[in-house]
């Protein structure tokens, strides 16, 4: 998994049906000690993360499909947690 910060939300009306009604967040990747890496990814939110919050992102297909409970979900990046602190 990776740590990142929610930079914003992406809105889209024309997309694969699986993504209908799902929140898409733009997440800036961070190192485990919270430094931005310059990379980003677009992830589906499952925990209600808001802009500016530090989040935990699962970036692997099988785990993502388990989370959404659909074995054919075309999904890889899922926000799975909101980080309170990095130690």
């Amino acid at each position: 998994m990776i740590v990142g910060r929610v930079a914003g939300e992406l809105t889209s009306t024309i997309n694969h049906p699986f993504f209908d009604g799902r929140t898409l967040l733009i997440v800036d990747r961070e190192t485990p000690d919270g430094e931005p890496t310059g990379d980003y990814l677009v992830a589906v939110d499952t925990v209600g993360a808001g802009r500016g919050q530090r989040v935990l992102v699962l970036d692997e297909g099988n785990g993502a499909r388990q989370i959404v409970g659909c074995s054919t979900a075309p999904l890889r990046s899922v926000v799975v947690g909101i980080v309170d602190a990095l130690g």
Partner: protein
Amino acid sequence: MLLGRVIGTVIPCVVYEGLRGVPMLVVQPLDREGRPRGRAIVAADPTRMAGPGELVYFEGGREAALLLEPSFVPVDHAIVGIVDGFSRAPGGTA
């Protein structure tokens, strides 16, 4: 998923049967600020609605194959959807 800009189309004359009729678009990956980053790729477009100049988000690997019906045709990139807009954190640009 990553952001990309459609910069062209590819029209194959001969293609693997699972890909017949699937639009193929040339997509330039973008960084978070919307600037080109890395090399352009060819992505299948299951939405069949993205055109040149449009901002899209795309996925690679096995998930790209899953985006196409019947899934599991040989593609390594596919467009997930067309971006309508962003709502950004204060101070964010692009």
